[in-house]
C-alpha cells in the first residue's frame, strides 16, 4: 500500500463539479494528481491536469499509478473500478454515493482476488493531515498529529476531527470507510493498518446504527489490537425503523452471520465496545478527555 506524498493519483470522472473541486483541493494539498479520466473528453487539460479517455492511456503517459479516486455516477462505478483494476491500480477510493450493493459485492470479489484495496463506496476517502489528501475531507478540520480516525460517516468524521484539532490532538490519518452496509474495506482492515502505522498512537473509531461492523470491530480490538481505541457511536436516539431497513426479514436478520440478537442498534454497538473494555464517548467533545486518559497511561 502506498500512502506517501509522492504516490501517483488519478481521478476517474474528473469533469463533474464535485470531482473538479476535489482534484484541485487535493492538488493544493500537495497530492500528486497526475491525470483525470473522462471517456470522450480525453486530450484536453482540466486546469493543468491532463485528461484521458482510458485509464491505460493515462498510465502509458504518466507511468505506474498507485491510487484512483472514483467520482463517476453510481451505476458506472463498478465498470470504472474494473477498468482501474485491469490497469493494475492497487488502491481505489470510491467517493460516489448510491452504488448498488450487488455491484459492491462484485467489486469486492475481484478486489480480493487481485489484492486491491478498495475504500468506500460513499466515502470521503483518506486524509493524512499535512501530507496527503485522497478524497473529499475538508482540510480545514484537520491538523497533523498522532491520532488515527476510522469512521463510517463522512461529515461526522469532520466534526470529531475538528474537536480533536481544537484540543491540540492532531491526526495521523483519517479514513472514512463509507456509510453503506457493504463496503470495500472494513473497520477490521483499517484497525490492523493503524495498529501497525508508526505515526499513530491511538485510534478513534466512529460508528453508527445499522449492520454489525462495530460489534465485529469490538471483538477484533479485544483480540488483536494493541494501541488504545476510543469509540463513539451515533444514532442512539434514532427510531429503529431505520435500523430495520436492511434487515430484510425476521428470518434473514437472525440467520445472517452477525448471529447477534439485537445487533444493529446503537445500544448493541456500545455494549459490544464496553464488553471489550473499549471506552465509549457520549458525544464528540468527550472524545478528547478519553484520549488524554489513555495516552497519559503510556
Amino acid at each position, binding site marked *: 500500500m502506498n500512502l506517501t506524498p509522492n504516490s501517483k493519483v488519478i481521478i476517474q470522472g474528473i469533469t*463533474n*463539479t*464535485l470531482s473538479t*473541486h476535489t482534484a484541485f483541493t487535493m492538488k493544493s494539498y500537495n497530492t500528486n494528481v497526475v491525470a483525470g479520466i473522462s471517456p470522450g473528453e480525453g486530450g484536453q487539460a482540466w486546469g493543468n491536469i491532463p485528461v484521458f479517455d482510458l485509464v491505460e492511456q493515462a498510465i502509458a503517459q504518466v507511468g505506474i499509478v498507485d491510487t484512483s479516486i472514483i467520482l463517476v*455516477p*453510481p*451505476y458506472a462505478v463498478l465498470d470504472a473500478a474494473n477498468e482501474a483494476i485491469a490497469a493494475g491500480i492497487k488502491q481505489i477510493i470510491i467517493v460516489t*454515493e*448510491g*452504488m*448498488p*450493493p*450487488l*455491484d*459492491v*459485492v462484485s467489486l*469486492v*470479489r475481484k478486489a480480493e482476488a487481485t489484492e486491491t484495496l478498495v475504500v468506500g463506496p460513499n466515502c470521503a476517502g483518506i486524509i493524512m493531515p499535512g501530507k496527503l489528501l485522497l478524497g473529499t475531507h*475538508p482540510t*480545514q*478540520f484537520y491538523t497533523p498529529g498522532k491520532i488515527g480516525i476510522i469512521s*463510517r*460517516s*463522512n*461529515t*461526522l*468524521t*469532520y*466534526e470529531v476531527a*475538528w474537536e480533536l484539532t481544537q484540543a491540540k490532538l492532531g491526526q495521523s490519518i483519517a479514513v472514512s470507510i463509507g*456509510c453503506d*452496509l*457493504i463496503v470495500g474495506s472494513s473497520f477490521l482492515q483499517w484497525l490492523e493498518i493503524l495498529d501497525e502505522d508508526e505515526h499513530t498512537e491511538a485510534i478513534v473509531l*466512529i460508528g*453508527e446504527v445499522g*449492520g*454489525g*461492523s462495530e460489534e*465485529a470491530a469490538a471483538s477484533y480490538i479485544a483480540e488483536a489490537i494493541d494501541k488504545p481505541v476510543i469509540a463513539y457511536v*451515533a*444514532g*442512539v*436516539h*434514532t*427510531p429503529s*425503523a431505520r435500523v430495520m431497513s*436492511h434487515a*430484510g*426479514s*425476521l*428470518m*434473514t436478520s*437472525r*440467520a*445472517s*452471520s*452477525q448471529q447477534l440478537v439485537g445487533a444493529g442498534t446503537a445500544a448493541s454497538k456500545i455494549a459490544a465496545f464496553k464488553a471489550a473494555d473499549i471506552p465509549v464517548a457520549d*458525544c*464528540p*467533545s468527550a472524545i478528547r478527555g478519553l484520549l488524554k486518559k489513555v495516552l497519559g497511561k503510556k
Partner: protein
Amino acid sequence: MDLLEYQAKNLFREMGIPILPSQTIGTPKDLKGLKIPYPVVLKSQVRAGGRGRAGGIKFAGNTIDAVAAAQTIFALPIMNEYPEVILAEAKYDANQELYLAVFLDPVARRPVLLGSKQGGIDVEATMEQMQQVIVGQEFSPFYARRLMIQMGLEGKLIHAVSNIVERMYQLFVEKDLDLIEINPLGISLGGEVMALDGKISVNDQALQRHPELLAVVNYHPHAEIKTKPTAACLETSSNKPTVSLAYADKINRQPLSVVSIGTGNMGILGNGEGLTMATVDLVVQEKGKPANCLNLRLADCIDRVNTTEGGDILPERIDQALDLLIENQQLKVILVNILGYFPEPIVLINLLIDYLKKNQRSPRPIKFVVRLVDGNTAEIQKLVGDLPIDVALSLDEAVHKAVSLAKARD
C-alpha cells in the same frame, strides 16, 4: 422497496418459478368474475408479515363467502396498512413446506442462500433447521445443491428445489434485490413444487436502473386514483410508512426525507446521516425533545451548483427541507448543523434569512439556531437583525442554545 406478494409472484412467473393460478381483486364485486375454481384463499396484499394471524388470509368455498371474506379483509389494516388489492389463489394442499431465501450478508459481503426443511408460520421451528450457504464466488448450481444436502433433502427433491433456488438467485442478481424469500415452498405428495408465498425487496439505491420495477410499484390496477406508468412516474420513488418523501428530483437523485423521532418541538437539520443522528443524540442528552430530523444530503447538490441546467438548486433544497420539517405542527426550534459544505458561513445565514422572509406570513414563528465553525458572530447577528436566527461556534453550544430556546417557549 418491498414488493407486494402478487408483484413478487409476477416476477416468479417471469423467471419460471411455479405459482398457483391467481387473480387480483380490487373490490369485493370483482369476485363475481372470479376465474379460479373454489375453494380459494383470499390474501390481503400488504407488506407486513403475519397476515394469517392478523386475519388477513381467509378461505372461501363459494362466491357469497368469498365476498364476505373480501369485505372483511379490505377493512382490516395490518401494521397500519390497508390492502388496495386482495390476491385470490387456488387452495393448495402441500404435503411438506420448505423455507427458501437469498439475501445479502453485509459481514460476509456475499449473497447467502438460506433454506429450512421446516417452512411455514412457525418461526422458531424454521430457525432450528435453518441452513445457509455463502456464495463465495460466481454463482454456479452446485451452491444450491450444497444447500439441498445441508437441508436434508433427498432424491428427486434435490433437483426440483435446487432449480427453484437457482431461479431465485438469478432474479436476485438481475433485479438488484436485497431479499427474495419463498415461505413456504409447498411440496405435493407427487413431488411437485409450488411457491405458496413470495417476498421480494428491491434495493433502493439500485431501483433507478430498473424502470420496469418502478412501473410495478407506481401502477395501481384498482386504485381510485388513476396512476399509469408514465415518464413522470419513473422519476419518483415509492413511499415508506414511517417517513414522508417529497420533491423527488431527477433520476438518480434521492429525495429528501424527514424522519419523525418523537412528540417534541425541535427539528434537526444536518448534512450526512451520521452527523444528523449525532446531533439528535446531543439534543436528547441535553434533555431537549426532538420532533424530527432531516439529512440534507448535500453531496448531491454540488453537482448542480452553478451549472447551466437550472442554476443553483441549493436554495430550493434548503427551502424544501425546512418546509418538510415545519410540516410538524409541534415544531418551534430548528437546529442547523451543516459541516464542511459552505466555505463562507454567511452563505448559509443568507439562505435562512431568505427563507424566513419568504415565510413571514406563517402564523407559527420558528426559531433557528445555526452551528457555525467560524465566522464573525457579531457581524452575523447584525446581518440577521430582528430575525429569529441565533448562531453558535461549537456543536455543544448550539445544542445548548437550541434546547434552552425550545424549553423557554413551552
